């Protein structure tokens, strides 16, 4: 895959995920639930050890954009940069040793295997929702009152991200045939 192609695919990914995010949150209007599906974009970014700074800056930019949409300046920016940073270590643990510094890896279902992939997505999705909820309420009273909703949000987002990845994987494999 050429470098230019990768760029185009990532931009399309970003637009796709942001649209999905807006559509889901506009379609499912129910009490106290927020589904942050767009983080799928961060989770499936191609990963190299050496381009950490660009990833963080990208996370900052996209987080800020989402914040502007939700009138929550700072919350998503913080959470996005955080999961992009921690993703680095998580991938280091989960991906096979010996993958060199310069090789680009896409953390997808096919590259990681079901078990590791599920764990990877679950960890980062949970972390993201936890951080956003805590920053939004910044008090533990609200936190416990909202715990069931938080769990539901995490589960729904998790399912959507997982399905979106399978869907995109299917498109990718038909294109390469």
């Amino acid at each position, binding site marked *: 895959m050429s470098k230019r192609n990768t760029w185009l695919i990532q931009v399309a990914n970003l637009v796709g995920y942001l649209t999905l995010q*807006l*559509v889901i949150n*506009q*379609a499912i*209007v*129910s*009490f*106290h*639930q*927020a589904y942050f599906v767009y983080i799928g974009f961060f989770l499936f970014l191609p990963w190299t050890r050496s381009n*950490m*700074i660009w990833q*963080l*800056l990208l*996370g*900052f930019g996209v*987080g*800020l954009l989402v*914040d*502007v*949409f*939700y*009138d*929550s*300046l*700072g*919350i998503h*920016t*913080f959470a996005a*940069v*955080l999961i992009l*940073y921690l993703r*680095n270590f998580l991938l280091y643990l989960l991906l096979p040793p010996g993958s060199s510094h310069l090789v680009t890896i896409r953390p997808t279902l096919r590259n990681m295997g079901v078990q590791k992939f599920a764990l990877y997505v679950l960890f980062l999705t949970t972390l993201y929702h936890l951080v956003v909820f805590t*920053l*939004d*309420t910044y008090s533990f009273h*609200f936190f416990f*009152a*909202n715990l069931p909703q938080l769990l539901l949000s995490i589960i729904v987002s998790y399912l959507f991200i997982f399905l979106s990845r399978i869907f995109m994987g299917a498109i990718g494999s038909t294109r390469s045939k």
Partner: protein
Amino acid sequence: MKKLLRFLYDYRDLLIFLLLESVSLSLLFNHHVQKEVKKLNSSHALIGNIYELMTDLRMHAKWKASYQQILVENASLREYILQQQEMIEKQGSMEQPTTRQFDVIPAQVINNSIICTKNYLTINKGTNSGIAPGMGVITKDGVVGRVKAVSEHFATIISLLHTDIHISAKLASSGVMGTVRWLGHNPRQVNLLYIPRHLTIEVGDRVVTSGYNATFYDGVTIGKVSHVKLDKAAMFYEILVDLSTDLSALQHVYVVKNHLSREQDSLEQITKAYYE
């Protein structure tokens, strides 16, 4: 020096990470920074347009129901006007000539949230239609919130479901004044604060706006008292109010424009300044 540069280079990822996180936290918590970047909110034209497009798509299905709702509302308003006219005719020449004080600007809600503890709405009218920050927002059922920021075609509204918004209210039956504030979790209930303990409060009393500030006029419904509690040592009642407006299903709202708000505010300011 060389060592320092080396150190910075080795830890560049961590340093950039910490820098970006502190910038986001200052966006969130530092009010000074918030003032500087005030323009970054959903009343921005581009974001407003995206939300409007999505609302149009979503509303297409609901269009008919919405049309019906408007017809019904229109009818009831006409009825109200007629009643008023009748009353005026009955009073005859007693009617004093007064300046028309309140204007109502209809608008459509294009973005709404009830999921946070600080919720905002976006509507599709802005400075072009005469909307300015500080105006009250209502529906036919009751209070919705207050305008926070305006662009040319859009406006952001602080929802009643925002833990920092306080609305001056009173009990319709007795006229006792208090303050309405949201608790932060149940989007159907708000608190009515500062009702002193010597009064008797009954469940089911209507709570309305007091009209003591320039945002709303007197008597806009907020909700009904649903729960009253009085601790032995407390100075004030703990009162829960069921909201009359379903803030999760807003489609059309009215922005209340008070022509005399500046006059009222400045007079009150002058009086205050004189006596303090």
